[in-house]
C-alpha cells in the first residue's frame, strides 16, 4: 500500500466525486418525478393509464441500465437525435430509477388507510390536494428506508455512465490506476469517496425520517 498515491490524486478524485454526485442527484430527482407520475398513473381509475404505467415499469426495470445508456447515447444518434453525454447519463439513470421508485411509492400509498383519502374527499379536497397534502406526505414517511436503498443503488450504478464518456469516480479511479500502476490504492481511494457519499445519503434519510415522524406526533 502506498497511501500517498491517494493523496496525490486527491484533487482529481474530489472533482470526479463531484461529477458522480451531480449526475446521481439529478438522476434521483428526475427519477422521483417520473416515479411519482408513474405511480399516480398506476393507481388511477383509467385502465389505459394503469396499463401504460405497468408497461413502463416492466420495460425499464427489465432492461439493464448499461443497455439503456448505450441505447440513448449511440442508438438514438443513428436516427439523428443527438443526445449530449451528460443528458444521456442523467436521462438513463432517471428512466431506470423512475421505474423502481414508482413501485416503492405505490407500495407506500397502498399502505395508507383508505379511510383517509375517503374522508378528504368528503371534506371537499380536490384530487391534487389529496395527493399533495394527504397521500404523498404519509407515503414518503413509509417509503424513506426503501427510497434511500434505491438512491444508494443508483449512486453505485452511476459508475456505468462512464460508457457515454462522463469522467465520474470509477472512470477517474481507472485512469489513476493506469497512470500510476497502483490499482489497489486508486480503487480504494475511489471506494472511500463512494462510501462517504453513501453514508451522507443514509444520514440524510435518517434526518428526513425524524422530521416526518415528528410531524405526525
Amino acid at each position, binding site marked *: 500500500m502506498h497511501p500517498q498515491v491517494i493523496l496525490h490524486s486527491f484533487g482529481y478524485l474530489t472533482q470526479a466525486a463531484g461529477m458522480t454526485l451531480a449526475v446521481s442527484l439529478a438522476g434521483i430527482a428526475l427519477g422521483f418525478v417520473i416515479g411519482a407520475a408513474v405511480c399516480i398513473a398506476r393507481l388511477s381509475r383509467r385502465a389505459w393509464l394503469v396499463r401504460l404505467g405497468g408497461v413502463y415499469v*416492466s420495460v425499464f426495470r427489465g432492461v439493464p441500465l448499461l443497455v439503456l445508456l448505450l441505447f440513448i447515447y449511440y442508438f438514438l444518434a443513428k436516427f439523428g437525435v443527438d443526445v449530449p453525454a451528460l443528458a444521456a447519463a442523467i436521462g438513463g439513470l432517471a428512466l431506470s430509477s423512475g421505474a*423502481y421508485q414508482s*413501485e416503492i411509492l405505490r407500495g407506500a400509498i*397502498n399502505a*395508507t388507510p383508505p379511510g383517509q383519502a375517503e374522508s378528504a374527499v368528503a371534506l371537499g379536497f380536490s384530487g391534487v390536494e389529496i395527493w399533495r397534502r394527504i397521500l404523498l406526505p404519509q407515503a414518503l414517511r413509509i*417509503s424513506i428506508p426503501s427510497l434511500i436503498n434505491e438512491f444508494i*443503488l443508483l449512486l453505485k450504478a452511476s459508475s456505468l455512465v462512464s460508457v457515454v464518456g462522463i469522467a465520474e469516480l470509477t472512470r477517474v479511479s481507472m485512469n489513476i490506476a493506469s497512470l500510476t500502476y497502483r490499482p489497489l490504492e486508486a480503487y480504494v481511494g475511489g471506494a472511500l469517496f463512494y462510501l462517504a457519499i453513501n*453514508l451522507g445519503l443514509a444520514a440524510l434519510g435518517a434526518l428526513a425520517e425524524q422530521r416526518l415522524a415528528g410531524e405526525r406526533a
Partner: protein
Amino acid sequence: MDFEVLWRYAPSLLSGFGVTVLCWGAGGALGVALGFLIALLNRLRLAPLRRLLRVFIEVFRGTPFLVQLFLLYAGGPYIGLRLSATTAGVIGLGLYSSAYFAEIFRGGFAAVPVGQIEAATSVGMKPFDVLWRVTLPAALIAALPPIVNMLIVLSKETVVLSIITVPELMYQMQTMAAETFTAFDAIFAMAVFYWLLVEGVSRLGRRLEARVTAFMAEEARPA
C-alpha cells in the same frame, strides 16, 4: 446470428441458467430471512444492538457487492473460512441483500398503524400471532413492491459471481463467446435469459401482492 452455435452450447447455457436461478433463489431467500430477522431485532429497542445492526447495514449497503464477494471468497481462507465458489456466492448475495431487505422491512413495519397492534394485544393474541396475522400482512402491503425491486436488482447482481468462477449464465456465455467468437449471439441469448428471469420475478411479486390484498380483505370482513 448463428443458431447452430447457440444450439451446440445449449446444454452449458441451460446449466448456467440453472446455477443463476439457484444462486439467486438461495441468496435472495437468505437475504429476505436475514433482513427480516434484523428488522425484528431492531424492534427490540436495545440501544447497543441497534447500533451494531446499523453498522452492519451501512457497511453492506455502502460498499460494492464485488468488493464484499472478493473479501469473502479470497479473504475468507485467512480466517479459516474455506468456501466453494458457489457457496461463497450464495452467502455473499444473502449478506449483501439482507442490508437492503432489513431497511425495506423497517419501512414496512413503520406503515402498520400502532392501534392495530395494541388492539390485537389487548384482545389477548400471542406475540407471535400478532406478528404473523396483524403486523406482517399490513407491513407487506408497503414492503412487497420494494422487495420485488430488490430481488430484480439481485438477479442482475448474480453476474458478478462469474468473477469468482461460479459456473452461472454469464460465465458460460463468456466461455462460449471466447471459444466461438460469437459475442453478439452470446449477448443476445443473455438478454433473453435475464429478461425471462426478471419477468418471472415480477409476476411472482404481483401474485404475492394479490394474495396479501385478498388476505387483508378477508380479515377485514365482519364475521
